[in-house]
């Protein structure tokens, strides 16, 4: 009796151990992603490179982005409250002090992390990493808890404080490809994902694969200094992957291990 109970317990412990050993590999989903690796085997991995040497800080990207993505204008009162939503913003970074201060201007879209801190914390799968490396947001599922927004170390996610509204003339000119966000949800830069859809449709109707340059985001197109480059990081020939491996390349808050797909090129080097 004692023997059989003992062996039973041993079996239990063994199987529990095996269960967890099998499970821990999957614990944070990283292995799984690598295995599936839609991007790893030939699929594209969309990325951006921003040359800070070329950027003039003109804010054309900011305007183009808000036009393209149906962002509300925002009133002075809202600006005073700090409630303006711009998926692309210019972050001024002060370096050094008088007598030789320097100011860097850093265009800040969503950094499209490979290991995004925002998706782990979402309680309802409203934010996710898609097969082509874009961090998506499902507005119709989001419960508005703002956990993802707070978990983002880059402060690149936003929250719709009120129901969307535009001056009458502008309400006619919304981009039909982009959903207007309802009140009370989180939103973010999606690398103009709707343009990818359009480019894919165009390519397939012409019976050819997607070429470099077919899919460009609004900020890239608007940049007069051509400081922003966009493309497939897995395509070794693309400009963006060449720039991303340049010695000038760096990432914001690299030490956090979020592996952003937005690369910056150091200025003055």
């Amino acid at each position, binding site marked *: 009796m004692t023997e059989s109970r003992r062996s039973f317990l041993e079996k239990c412990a063994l199987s529990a151990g095996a269960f967890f050993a099998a499970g821990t590999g999957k614990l944070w989903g990283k292995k799984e992603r690598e295995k599936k690796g839609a991007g790893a085997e030939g699929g594209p991995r969309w990325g951006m490179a921003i040359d800070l040497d070329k950027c003039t800080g003109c804010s054309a990207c900011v305007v183009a982005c808000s036009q393209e993505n149906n962002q509300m204008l925002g009133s002075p009162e809202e600006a005073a409250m700090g409630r303006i939503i711009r998926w692309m913003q210019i972050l001024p970074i002060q370096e050094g002090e008088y007598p030789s201060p320097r100011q860097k201007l850093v265009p800040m879209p969503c950094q499209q992390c490979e290991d995004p801190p925002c998706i782990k914390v979402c*309680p309802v799968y409203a934010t996710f990493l898609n097969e082509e490396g874009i961090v998506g947001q499902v507005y119709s599922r989001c419960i508005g*808890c703002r956990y993802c927004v707070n978990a983002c170390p880059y402060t690149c996610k936003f929250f719709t404080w009120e129901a969307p509204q535009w001056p009458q003339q502008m309400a006619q000119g919304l981009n039909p490809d982009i959903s207007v966000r309802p009140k009370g*949800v989180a939103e973010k830069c999606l690398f103009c994902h709707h343009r990818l859809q359009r480019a894919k449709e165009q390519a397939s109707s012409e019976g050819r694969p997607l070429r470099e340059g077919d899919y460009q985001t609004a900020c890239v197109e608007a940049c007069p200094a051509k400081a922003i480059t966009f493309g497939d990081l897995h395509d070794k020939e693309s400009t963006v992957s060449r720039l991303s491996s340049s010695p000038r390349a760096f990432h914001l808050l690299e030490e956090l291990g979020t592996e952003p797909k937005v690369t910056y090129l150091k200025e003055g080097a």
Partner: protein
Amino acid sequence: MREKRWTFYAQSAGLGGFYLFTLTVNGWFIWRIRELRDLGDVWIPAAAIGAIVGPLFILFSCILTAIFRAVTLREGPELTSFPQRSAFRPKTTPLEEDLIRPVLSRPTKGFVALVAVLGAVVGVAFLAWTTQFNQGLRVTGLNNPVFWGFYITNFVFFIGISHAGTLISAILRITNAEWRRSITRSAEVITVLVLLFGAVNILLDLGRPDRMFNVFLYGRHQSPLLWDVCSITAYLTASTIYLFIPLIPDIAILRDRTEGWRREFYELLSMGWSGTPGEKKVLEKCIAIMAIVVIPVAISVHTVVSFVFSMTVQPMWHSTIFGPYFVVGAIFSGIAALIIAMSILRRAYHLEEYLKPVHFRNLGILLLAMSCLWFYFTFCEYITTWYGNEPGHMLIFNSKMTGVYWPYFWGMVVTCFVIPFTLLVSPMGKTVLGTTLASIPVCIGMWLERFLIVVPTLVRPRLPYTTGSYTPSWVEISLFAGCLAAFTLLYAVFTKLFPIVSIWEVEEGREHAAKEVSDRIKTYF
């Protein structure tokens, strides 16, 4: 079997309902694990949480079943021949008269006035809530980057206060601290009620409260918010059962002394208790089991609440000691809330005979210990940040020490440590007044502490954006006031429905505890 009245069927239905709840909880976990596997996402967190919470609910079902079988389905002679007074308490005692008076006497003018005022505050809060529901969170003071403010602070604060009851009462029961007998009930009620308002604050905070059920439909078990949902549900259920079981004999006393609808109401809740030794044995066993189970559940709740912050990589949130730090703070504010509640009850219902200075003194010692422990944790947390001197962390550290939040920080140190410590080590600390005076600042200080954890980190993002700021709007303030008022209101109503000091436990203490304790002491030497 005894005569079956409608109450018997209602009680059976209630038990059946709980079985259904247990089944739903377990089924939900199994369904989620399958869904997550199909999605190709991680399912281990769901399995691990389910493996703890599921069996816990089965245990609760077993406990309720045991009580139902022993009490409601009791075989043997009829003792509670409705509508006569049951045989188990043929005559009343002065103690029973004293403790039951608040329940049976008509509400005083003061009580009615209190209810009216609290009701008005709740009404304003309701108005504020409808405004927010219609217009969205723009009516709050929240902004980019301060996305969390009052609601999350209050959520953490209320959940903290909820540790007053169940945890303290469970620890005192397990350690056979005889002085607990007259204070456990008032503590357990705080837990159940305040926990509700903790959960309510999460709902207030949601941008889309209409979609809250998405958490159950599409739950992602990797998210600390889902850990919260599981653990708070378990704690709320456990502490409600833990409040209810020791209440049964007292409800039976009330059943025997009331008429009309109140009699029916108590008859329903008493489960047909008639006080035979068999029933008592089962009841005490169930209380003992629940007292043990409730402790880890309570600790898990506040640990998981702290994980909401510490699981992110944000400076001064990403801290390994947050779990125990939050638990200590929770017990600390819980004891303070309990002392305040007890001193009000003592005055309002003339319970000086039952809530004696010794109870306050003992709780005061506990409060003193927790105050020191809280200071120790705060010291550890801040000195490691300061010594490490990382720029991102130091921005927030400085904003608390010398920056815009200095009044909050130093106010917290004074109210959580300086005032209670000096009061409690002085001779005043042995009196009712002294412990109460020490407890009021502790409640304020612990609220400040929660605020200081939530807001300053958000005000200074890692990247050098313009510094944010946060001022709560009237909506947030009135909803906070509304939660406090609604809690007080429900507490007051509870004291009018049930005896706030356990009659049977105090009676048992007076009759048997002295002998038990002296017997126990003999075994020590």
